[in-house]
Each structure stands twice: as C-alpha cells, then as structure tokens.
C-alpha cells in the first residue's frame, strides 16, 4: 500500500530525528517508542536540547528550520559528551 506523500515524509523525518538524537544527543537506542510519539516529554526535551545547542528557537517541535539544520552535512562527533 503506497503511503500518502505527507505521511511518508513525516516518517522519514521521524527516522532522521531518531538517528540524529541517538547519534549526537545521547538518546537511548531503546527509546524508539518515544520518538514515534514525538509529543512525549523525553523526546521534546531532547529536541529542545538540540535546538538550544544549534542556536535554533527552542520549540521542542520538529519544525522546518530544525529539519533544515539536521539535513546539513556535519561533523560526526556527538554534540554532547559521553
């Protein structure tokens, strides 16, 4: 069943968000269920942490400005310390 364009786009964004937060902001690998529910508090806090670090408005939402920065090439070193 082909997905509706907007839905597919949202899924892709959620995958990118999950990978981004896992790779660079220390989101636990088993937090998948939280990412799928992006309104959940731990994920919102992680998005805000990322937005604060990247100098973006801390909306806690996966807005277009945040997505744009996440899609840019970058250094692979995590933005938070292990």
């Amino acid at each position, binding site marked *: 069943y082909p997905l509706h364009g907007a839905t597919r786009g949202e899924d892709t964004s959620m995958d990118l968000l999950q990978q981004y937060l896992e790779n*660079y902001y220390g989101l636990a690998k088993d937090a998948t269920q939280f990412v799928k529910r992006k309104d959940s508090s731990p994920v919102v806090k992680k998005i805000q942490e990322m937005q*604060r*670090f*990247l*100098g973006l408005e801390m909306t806690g939402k996966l807005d277009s400005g945040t997505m744009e*920065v996440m899609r*840019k*090439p*970058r*250094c*692979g*070193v995590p*933005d938070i*310390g*292990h």
Partner: protein
Amino acid sequence: FNTFPGTPKWGKTQLTYRIVNYTPDLSREAVDAAIGKALRVWEEVTPLTFSRIYDGEADIMVSFAVGEHGDFIPFDGPGTVLAHAYAPGPGLNGDAHFDDDEQWTEDTTGTNLFLVAAHELGHSLGLFHSANPEALMYPVYKFSQNMAQFRLSQDDVNGIQSLYGSATVSPDHSVAPPESGPPESATPTMCDPALTFDAVTTLRGEALFFKDRYFWRKSLRTHEPGFYLISSFWPSLPSSIDAAYEVAGKDTVFIFKGNQFWAIRGHEEQSGYPKSIYTLGFPATVRKIDAAISSKEKKKTYFFVGDKYWRFDEKRQSMEPGFPRKVAEDFPGVHSQVDAVYEAFGFFYFFNGSLQLEFDPNAKKVTHFLKSNSWFNC
C-alpha cells in the same frame, strides 16, 4: 566554546602529525596543503607547533576511510557525517578521520577539505563542539566564500587559548598556563617607529618584509609597498616565520619556521615540503633559524642562529666545515641576535628590533644605522 568532558589536552606544545593515506579526489599536494593550512589555523593563535612525520605513530594521525574503518564508529556514505576526530591522548586519541565517500575539494564545489580539517583538528587539540554558529567548531558544515582569508572566530580563539594559552612557551616546551585574556592580534603598520620584522628576503627582484601573518612587497620601481596576507599568496606557509632567503639561481625562496622549512617559486608552493632543517646539516641543538641570506655571487647561504652563523655551500649542497662561527668576529659591529638579514647594493642589512645595520662585507664594518622600516619611505 566547549572542551571535551574532563578537558583533555596535550601536555606538550610540539606535536607530530602524519597523513596516513590520501583521498583519490585530490592530488597529494592538495591534501598536504589543506592539512598543513588547517594546522596552522591553530598554530597561529597558540604556542603549539606541528611537525610532520612519515612513519610510525604520530600524535595526530590523519586518514581517509569509508564505512566501518576500525574504530566502531562507521562512516555513513555520501553526505551527513563528513569526518570525526578524537580528543587529545595516546593511540586513537588525537586522530582525525575523513569520510572518503564525500567529494573532497580545494574549493567549495564539493566538501572543502581545509575547512573540515581545521574543525576536526580542533577536536584533536581538545575543543568540543561550540554552540556558536559563527565558530569553526560549530558542528554543522558551512563553507566560507572567502577561504583564502579564513580566520578563526573569537569563540574558537578563546576556546583553544583556554587550553594552551596564546604564545608563551617555556624553555622545555611544556604548556604554559593560559593567559587571562586572549589579545587581539593587531595589524602591523609600516611606519610604526617600533616596527620589527620576522624575516626579509628578495623575490624576483622585489623585497618581501614578513611580519606575523602579513608581508610587505616592495619593488624598487614603486614608492609604496603592497601589504598582503601570507596565506593569500601561499596558503600552506605558516605565519610568524623565522627566516627567509632567495636562491636566485634556483628561482626559489626558502621559508623557515621552527625546525622546518618550505620552498616557494613565485606563487607556487613546492611539493615535498616542509622539510626538516636537519636535512641541511644543522645539529640537533639548533631549534630555529633567526635569519638567513644567500649570496648570489658567492653561492653561499648564511644562517644566523643566536650569536653564531653557519655557511651553506649552494654548489655542493652541504654545510661548510669550520662552522658555526661567531657573528661578531666575522661581522664586526653586529653584536646581538638578528631578526632578519637582507642584501642590496652589495651591502648586508641586519635587522635587530626596530634598528637596521648596514654592513659593508668588503670593508668588514657597519657603515650606517637605520630604522628597520627605512625601505618604506616613511
């Protein structure tokens, strides 16, 4: 700025680096130049110096790799992750890895190697990602249109100087405590009565006067000298050089800093450099050259180090026996250490602070005292 957790940093100022392999995207010379220029970005604002080695374990090992490459943090193919690097320390620490699935370029048509290398080497020295979007250490790649005149942001300078200080090196080359505030490096002015030079040389009939990251270029035909950034002509050259001289017969100018030297021919940086000064025959006790001059007629090059000098035979390409000798014995009147030396009209001009001594090598005496910037018609 941020530093890594625990603030790891190098406990010495003289670091080694090795370029382990090359990307097929660029010539070896272009990779060498990009890495050298990236290191000099940090060298210019700290007491750190970098020497290249070709074998064995260097403090900073630079390599290109794709996918999984032995550190359990695989690269991800084209895009997104461009490179990563490790904080100071032994083994893998200090190393910088570049994703060879990127298209590495010298310009901005692909991913600019110099810019990414400068960022990664910041990690190698102990800087973590900065939250300042203007900083080189900001995690997101952002190319600058004006690559030739690239400068660190004040945030980067503050960060690296919080680890290593700005310029002071103790005699044993251990790291001096950081200074309280990083000074802004001022642009030198040619008619400043206190102006001193790092080095002076001829280049194809013109005179070059080096100072910090700049140089003045003076032709006998022009009244006003031109003023340029060294990096705008020769991106791989360091700033604050120690000595420079031209071997006119080879159309080559040799530039010295620390225990390394570079060769340039006009605008071209010669491949195979920097080389160690010890390949010229200096003993290990010589750490740097203060000044140098090559006599076109005699085909001899004079290297001044402290109160002594060495003489190099350009025909035999070897250091002459019987040296070093005392400067004051063979150049009566030139007593103190010299900053630079220049030859014109059959005279040697020794620069010492804001003074200049005109020395007649035939009469073996100082014939005039001048201000160092007398060549600028101030």
